[in-house]
């Protein structure tokens, strides 16, 4: 019995901005089903009395930072690794609204 269908796999792929060849989808669907099948064992556990783990470090709360500006990197450094840039901006294919 499949837990996740091929269609769902395709939908998830779109959400994750991934794409696969048909045979890859087959393989992924099968592997994901195996893993999800295993993971379903969690249903054996009675978790009705507990809250989800919010933070592993007990008793820690968000540390707050002072509102003091720092000097950041130079733009040349920043854009040096950019795949595409123009006039100080990062460049991407046209975004259609």
């Amino acid at each position: 019995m499949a837990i996740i269908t091929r269609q769902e796999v395709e939908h998830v792929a779109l959400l994750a901005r991934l794409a696969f060849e048909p045979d890859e989808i087959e393989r992924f669907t099968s592997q994901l089903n195996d893993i999800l099948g295993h993971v379903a064992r969690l249903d054996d556990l009675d978790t009705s009395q507990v809250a989800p783990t919010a933070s592993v470090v007990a008793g820690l709360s968000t540390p707050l930072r002072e509102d003091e500006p720092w000097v950041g990197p130079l733009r040349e450094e920043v854009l040096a690794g950019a795949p595409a840039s123009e006039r100080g901006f990062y460049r991407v294919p046209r975004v259609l609204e």
Partner: protein
Amino acid sequence: MKLIESTASQLVTLIREGEVKRSEVVEAYLERIAAVDESVGSFLTVTADRARRSARLADTVAEGGATPAGGVPFALKDNICVKDVPTTCGSRYLTGYRPPYSATAATRLEDAGFLLLGKTNCDEFAMGSSTENSGFHPTANPWDLRRVPGGSSGGSAAAVAAFAVPFALGSDTGGSIRQPASFCGVVGLKPTYGLVSRYGLVAFASSLDQIGPITRDVTDLAMVLGAIAGPDPLDSTSSRGKPPDYTQALVPDVDGLRAGIPRELFGEGIEPEVRQRVEEAAAVLGELGVEIEECSLPSAAYALDMYYVIAPAEASSNLARYDGVRYGHRAGLGRVTPAGEGDEGGAIAGAEDGAAGGAKGVPAAAPPGDLLSLYVATRREGFGPEVKRRIMLGTYVLSAGYYDAYYIKAQKARTLLRQDFERAFGRYDILISPTSPTPAFPIGERVNDPLAMYLADLCTIPASLAGIPALSVPCGFSQGLPVGLQIMGRAFSEETLLRVAFAYEQRTDHHTKRPPLLGVKRR
């Protein structure tokens, strides 16, 4: 040869006493890397110039009478950022990427006078248990070159085991320091979550990731831990208190301690010889005065399942930034180059250039004309199958309709596990288990069977989920392959773990054994 057989602590002393110069030490290790790394394949980048320069400078300062510290070379897993040094995380996506900043842990080591010698190979984005998922090449286990070194910090563990570097840092999310340390016969520690800053550690699963040391013995472990632990305002999950001096814990007195062996981590999946080695180790601890008995962590039987929901979920979000816009690969720009002649394995580039020789063959397509295609093609080309698998799994368990059933359920189960540990630590000071159910398996054996691969982390995952510290120390061999003993403790009980491991190490000689294949003499 002799120099490289010294431990990091011994080298620090030799250097401080003027017996040897830093430059000599650096050359010795570079020579060793040249000799062995073609077979082992630990390194993606060797930062020879940087190490030589820093060594020369520190030597000059020392000649002038000042006593700079450290002086010992080290390696960093390639998912730890160093400014302007290629950092690939074992992924083709980040081929050529040079971070604009350094990780806090890296900066602390260099500030303490240690010398960065190179970046080591790992499973892509730290996802894996064998380093076979590296986008560049697998790393070999120095004890048997046809076997995996473990993962995901396989490069770091193999480098230390092969004497190519005195110590290294790795990262551990579900066992990625401990399991390779165990496979390679070296010592590795996953610290308490929050003890070591994650700033600059490329995130895989944020609530599980920790940086930790991989060393040849426990004394070195204490030294390195001391150099990197401590609060960091740049990491909001780092703990606040000032860490103790870990070297003070190196006292082999464990009389009266109580140790539990959780049966869930010592069950049928454990290979017989591994079981025997661990039982022998328990006996040694018993001789040292430790009281040992079996105990139970009922939820630990489900730890793998919790992990394979939570970790991929966080990973799917952490890896969304790899979209081709600001850095790294972008489809159509031909940056990810197909593997060329002589490009295989290892990267002893004389210059700093380096990230890894070659990517697996990827044809350069025409630049995508629309945004969606850009994202999809970039990620398709840049990521390997295991990363894609985990992103898919993670996206699925977070998606509408499944979030409660999977993610929330797993986080609740995690709370049960943490309660089990708390109960156990109410009675025991430490918990012990094998680090891994088996010793190193052959390269290629599990790479096509994800579930089988995941089982390698059976013993290490529970400590990760609970955020508690866990250490792996060599405890013998199974048919010539190292076996590791895992020692776990309460949060921030690294001193206890070090004490137990040190006492055990003093009583045994496993840490003195050397991989025969690589020609380093036994002591």
